[in-house]
């Protein structure tokens, strides 16, 4: 993939992240760039801290208080394909993006029928 012709705003920012097993695992909340010489994307930034940074001051404060300050960096080299979505090379849990853990999962997965199609 050539980074030179990538429209970061339209093709990367706010796009859906999909892991190697087709699970949705969040959005690209921001990108990290290297501006030395030719600008280059270094990493995809995921988490409420980054998303909140894009809000006006008061909303940013509320959003962080309510939803925390999670920050995750996914190196650009982990991106395998860019279509409408951004496909990652490995499973979501390798990046800490798997939603099948934590208290929401614990609750839902204990309900009868939660494992049945």
């Amino acid at each position, binding site marked *: 993939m050539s980074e030179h012709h990538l429209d970061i705003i339209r093709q990367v920012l706010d796009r859906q992240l999909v892991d190697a097993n087709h*699970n949705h695992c*969040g959005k690209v909340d921001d990108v990290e760039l290297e501006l030395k010489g030719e600008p280059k994307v270094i990493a995809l930034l995921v988490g409420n801290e980054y998303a909140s940074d894009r809000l006006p001051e008061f909303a940013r404060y509320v959003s962080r208080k309510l939803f925390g300050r999670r920050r995750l960096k996914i190196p650009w080299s982990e991106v395998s394909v860019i279509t*409408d979505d951004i496909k990652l090379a490995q499973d979501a849990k390798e990046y800490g993006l798997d*939603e*099948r853990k934590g208290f929401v999962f614990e609750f*839902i*997965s204990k309900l009868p029928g*939660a494992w*049945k199609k």
Partner: protein
Amino acid sequence: MKNILEVFLGILTAMGGFVEIGELVFTVNAGVKFGYKLLWMVVVGTVGIIVFGEMSGRIAAVSSQPVFYFIRQRAGYGAGLLTLIAANLASLLTCAAEIGGIAILLKLLFGGNYFLLAFLTLVFLLLVVWFLSFQAIERIFGLLGLLMLVFVAAAFWLGPDWTSMASGFIPSVPQLETTSDYFVYAYFAVALLSSIMLPYETYFYASGGIEDGWNPSAINQNRIIVIVGFSLGALLAVALMIIGALYFAPLLIEPQMPGTAAMAPAFLFGKWGLIIALLGMFFAFSGAAIENALTGAYNISQFFGWNWGKYRVPKDAPRFHLAWMIMFVLAALIIFTGVDPVEVVEYSIVFSIVILPLTYLPMLLAGRDTDYMGPYANGWLAGILGWAYFVLICIAALAAIPLLIITHGGKG
């Protein structure tokens, strides 16, 4: 053959799911207050929901990308988040109104404590959405909502004067006695438009298309279902307005409670008329409550990029499943505060129209975007109608709150 059956069932489902509590309350009362004079607004609203329903179904069929992906990509995080909050608040209020309405119906059917019945409604809805598949929910509540056709039979039975009824389909401002009557007329016009074009409908429709696994070959099928199904559904709204004009107005009754509307079929067809009407309303309101709760969950999951959809095993989409449960619980909590459910209906309708431009603009932009839609982008007809309706709903949105205040919620 299978396709014909699909289209037929789709039409019936769209028809049975057309009327929900807000529409019922406002169409009957518009009939009481203004006779047939606001019938034209049912047509305006129905064409509007057909335009946007067709567009959102086409978006779902062409792109596997649901609408809130597009909203976030094009509007950015901040403006997208604002749209998400507004859309989900409208869905929450509508869901609460439906739950309150269902509790009232159950009270009429079985008697008992209103709050206990609201609680049982909550449990019923949670169990239904958890255990039934998306397709089963869609069919059961859409088809059983058709029991409301007893209102169409009742309207016929009352023998409307067809000539004066036909003149009601021509947009007009009638001669009214006082200035405040004109404001009330305008308030009802705006509320009818809102109740027919409620914002959740298109979001739900778009995500539902993805749940059903639509692809571009479904575009024509979608078009037929939307046009025929919604037009037939509008018949029900017309019938309710006739009932308001011919049955309730002479009795000087303004049916505030949704269950009161069932008095007309009860009077005309006896006990079974009443039971069929109440059951029809029960399924129609329940269907709308479910659609609103799911819409809230679709929107939020799509905005934040979580796994979503009833088609997924719940353990693989835990946040999505928790989200619709929370929607139901919050909606029920609104009812548990003891607020008058009719007021919730009214506020849900007015709030919905205020945010309608915010919800329909992204749909319009997505539908016309050739990057997103390829050869299936809006044609000239969808484009012209889409923008014309966008202007109309913007005007209605600006007028809604002043009219609510000036008319004291339509009371004059």
